[in-house]
């Protein structure tokens, strides 16, 4: 064989490389099929569906409230936003209004979840570029928030916190103080990571100018969330279609310019601070709830309630709305403040279920097969700002006790559809930061 022809044959040759489905740099299971010219990606294809759990089909076989736990598994890094997004869609269809306090609690839950989402995304993508310290700082900070979520919902990740018409329970008594402590830890971690990364030569070289997505391409692919904002479009569902109490809160929308990985990193870092600010404002503005007594007063109030059981009810009336002796945050006062009053929608409190026949029947009618909540026939679409962008739910009701059809619009599907285009022409090493900044969450991508 002549050397010359051999060399040209080799220079024109491309080869295929499978990245994933189980690859250390692919968070979750996804397969990239790459066509390489040496180190350069000539074309890429993306195969998804490895984590398909039939969420939408499953929802059709469930009652309205039973779908809530399955929404946890969509974006499992920010499950509370999914819970809220789903509940809002069903409530919109049923014309149900949640009390003020319940709406504030939902907003708080959403924003804490957004911080955990961004911390995970930034931490994981920094780790893949070699900054393992940042990953540890951020995951540690996330853990403080998870503890807070644990106090609020009873679980770190599988939260299942919302109900149609409200939330599961009121805020725990010392929530605001707990949040202040956790927020300080998060701010410290973000500031330390910022010092380690933002001006770091290696980090900048890897992030700047890689994975560039122009405004026009982002819109063509229907991309939303931090990814779109980094390209320079300040679209945020919280501002464009204010839900919950966002129209009464003050927050900025961080916007990038270049649309590269570095801008997406900066956007996410800035959004963490905005989300913390939002929670602080909510905790200030939240209408008083059943736990507005300080612990000392609470003790007296319990005694007064005990007196009431022996017939001395004079003082009881003063505290009746505030004392809560059943499961924390789930008694009558908490329920009145956080759930819609409609008895056809929300479960009665345990006191009512266990102590009177009306409560008992109400409870059974709501949990019995093919009874339950009846949402009027019709269809609607409602969207919230998820960790990755517009998280929409299209719900169709046939008038029954469960969805006739439930469509979840997963924000990261739209970014993943654009990924082959973003990778074309890049180096193999650029795949890692670009894929990291997409923040693909297989749970919501594959549903």
């Amino acid at each position: 064989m002549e050397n010359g022809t051999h060399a040209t044959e080799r220079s024109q040759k491309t080869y295929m490389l499978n990245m994933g489905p189980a690859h250390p740099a692919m968070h979750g299971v996804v397969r990239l099929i790459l066509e390489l010219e040496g180190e350069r990606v000539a074309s890429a294809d993306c195969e998804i569906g490895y984590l398909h759990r039939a969420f939408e089909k499953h929802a059709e076989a469930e009652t309205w409230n039973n779908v809530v736990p399955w929404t946890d598994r969509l974006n499992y890094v920010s499950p509370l936003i999914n819970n809220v997004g789903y509940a809002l869609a069903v409530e919109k269809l049923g014309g149900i209004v949640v009390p003020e306090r319940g709406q504030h609690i939902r907003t708080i839950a959403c924003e804490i979840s957004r911080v955990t989402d961004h911390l995970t995304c930034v931490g994981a993508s920094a780790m893949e570029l070699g900054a393992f310290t940042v990953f540890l700082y951020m995951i540690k900070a996330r853990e403080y928030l998870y503890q807070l979520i644990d106090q609020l919902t009873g679980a770190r990740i599988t939260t299942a916190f919302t109900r149609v018409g409200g939330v599961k329970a009121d805020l725990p008594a010392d929530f605001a103080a707990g949040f202040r402590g956790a927020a300080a830890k998060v701010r410290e971690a973000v500031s330390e990571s910022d010092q380690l990364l933002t001006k770091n030569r290696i980090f900048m070289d890897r992030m700047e100018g890689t994975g560039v997505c122009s405004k026009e391409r982002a819109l063509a692919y229907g991309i939303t969330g931090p990814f779109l904002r980094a390209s320079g479009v300040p679209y945020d569902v919280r501002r464009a279609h204010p839900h919950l109490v966002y129209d009464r809160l003050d927050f900025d929308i961080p916007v990038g310019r270049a649309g590269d990985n570095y801008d997406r990193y900066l956007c996410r870092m800035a959004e963490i601070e905005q989300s913390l600010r939002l929670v602080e404002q909510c905790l200030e503005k939240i209408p008083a709830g059943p736990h507005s007594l300080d612990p000392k007063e609470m003790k007296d109030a319990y005694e007064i309630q005990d007196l009431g059981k022996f017939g001395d009810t004079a003082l009881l009336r003063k505290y009746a709305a505030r004392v809560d002796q059943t499961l924390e945050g789930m008694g009558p006062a908490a329920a009145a403040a956080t759930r819609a009053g409609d008895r056809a929608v929300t479960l009665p409190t345990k006191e009512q279920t266990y102590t009177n026949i009306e409560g008992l029947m109400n409870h059974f009618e709501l949990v019995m097969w093919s009874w339950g909540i009846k949402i009027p026939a019709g269809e609607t679409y409602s969207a919230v700002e998820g960790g990755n962008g517009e998280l929409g739910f299209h719900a169709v009701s046939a008038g029954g006790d469960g969805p006739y059809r439930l469509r979840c619009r997963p924000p990261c599907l739209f970014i993943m559809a654009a990924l082959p285009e973003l990778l074309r022409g890049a180096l193999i090493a650029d795949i890692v930061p670009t894929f990291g900044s997409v923040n693909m969450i297989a749970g919501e991508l594959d549903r």
Partner: protein
Amino acid sequence: MSDLPRGERRDISPSDHLESLSRLKDEGFNVLVDLTCVDYSAQKKSPRFDVIYRLMKLDPVDGRDLGRVEIHCAVDDAPILRSVRSLWPVADWLEREVWDMFGVRFADRPDIKRLLMYEEFVGHPLRKDYPIAKRQPLIGPQDGDLPGSPSFNILKPTIVGE
């Protein structure tokens, strides 16, 4: 609560839906927010499928949503609808999902590929007549041996005669 993120509902005829949608795109609906489908066969509606295009007019400068519209196309699974990939490239994946989950075909995409399910999957799971307990064929041959594959079954110990 306002009906803003949903937008106004419009029903268009499936035969010239590409023209209608491209007119909407020219009007400024620059973002395809979602493309999905509902199977109404359990309600005995005809045609049985309702393909939904959700469009948004997004101002790229100040990020305001200038209006949304929800386009409904009632179709059967005959390939009538044409692909809108040329208008919004993300429709490529969304159409694959609609085909995968509902079996709604697109006239100019005869060799469309499933998005979430694997190639060997039989049926379209979000159809109302797809039985929840249906078993799917296992992938790969029964005995675990794939002739000519160097990686398949590589852990099987090879014991050659005593």
